[in-house]
């Protein structure tokens, strides 16, 4: 569980109820910067989760203050955000943990 500990209890402990949302947002940024509505659409497409604006901006605030995402120059009135190097490292650690969990689940026949 090293990866989970690295991502969850230390750096992300105070993300609270936004931890899962933060993971979805970081994942959404992997293929490029996005503004709020594009994020919601992308996350809905790949995860089936429809984020509400209050929840989205609660998580964006925390991710931005943590330095895991950074605002980009505004295009028209929309401001896109992009993932930073520390944000990508946190995402990779989290994915590695999830990957191990999936492996354990398959090995132990949880999907059978």
């Amino acid at each position, binding site marked *: 569980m090293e990866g989970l500990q690295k991502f969850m209890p230390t750096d992300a402990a105070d993300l609270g109820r936004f931890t899962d949302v933060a993971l979805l947002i970081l994942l959404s940024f992997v293929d490029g910067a996005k*503004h*709020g*509505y594009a994020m*919601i*659409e992308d996350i809905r497409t790949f995860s089936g989760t429809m984020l*509400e*604006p*209050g*929840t*989205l*901006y*609660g998580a*964006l*605030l*925390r991710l*931005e*203050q943590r330095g895991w995402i950074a605002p980009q120059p505004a295009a028209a*009135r*929309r*401001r896109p955000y992009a993932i930073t190097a520390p944000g990508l490292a946190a995402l990779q650690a989290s994915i590695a943990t999830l990957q191990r969990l999936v492996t354990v689940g398959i090995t132990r026949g949880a999907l059978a």
Partner: protein
Amino acid sequence: MKPSSLPSLRRAVDVCLWLYPRAWRLRYHQEMWDLLEQYPVTVWTVVDVLLGAGDAHFHQQWLPQEVLSMAQQIRTSANTLLVAFSLFLIAWVMVPFIRDTPDTWNAATAHHPEIIASLLLFVGAGAVAVIAVLIGGIPLLVASVAQAVWGRRPDVWARLLIPVLLGMVLVAFSLVAQPAWWARFGVRLPTSALWLKVGFFLLAFLVLGGSTWALASALTRSNFSDSLLRFLRLPGFLLGVALWSAFLAVLALTILVMQEEPQLAEPGFLLPGFAAVVLCACGLASAALKRMFSAPPPTTVVGSDA
């Protein structure tokens, strides 16, 4: 996805955006407003935005610090101190009524002079708190009135007039509540008409609450110099010390009365209740002072303070 066709929900969610802290709004309001223009707003969206506003207030450590300038932090803290003082004022006015029955009071304090000492300390600490508020409040009020006059600010004027009008209502009520006033019209009121007393206290609380809100709102809409705002730290600190001293005094008074002379405070929950009110005021004042003294120096300020 198409935006909701219910304009009432859209209006509701727009209103909810204004419930976020100012620091948040300066940074994210426009973005979220643009997002909501494209978003299919539902009742749950309104609830979610409302919860988000609450979350932003409860977790201010996440707010972008660069937009919370020294001026904003101190002004917000000054408003919180004003609220704390108003809360304290309720207890400060009410607790001395413990002496309402002179015979009981004199008999009780003859055996326990420490009760008098703690009451005097409480009243004295309250007087220091009043002085601190006057030291800090008068310059702010003068600056605010000057801006309202010279800057033709009807929004500030209206708010500054509210305490005056509410005070006049209270004075008028206290006059009308006199049985002698009614006697002119041939109406005889019992001298201890309970509804008049209850009505007066309820009205007094409303006047206090309304005046506090109006003054805080007027101060929020006024601009003050950095030197004046920095000066507020001195009376703010004095107010904090006075409130905590008052709390210790009312706590001692409560314990003494409850243990030694419970007949002085009937019903029994009143003194502990007032002690709790003073403790709440102390908590608010401490939070405000912490923020006031942690405000960054003006050279590091980024962002608007308009």
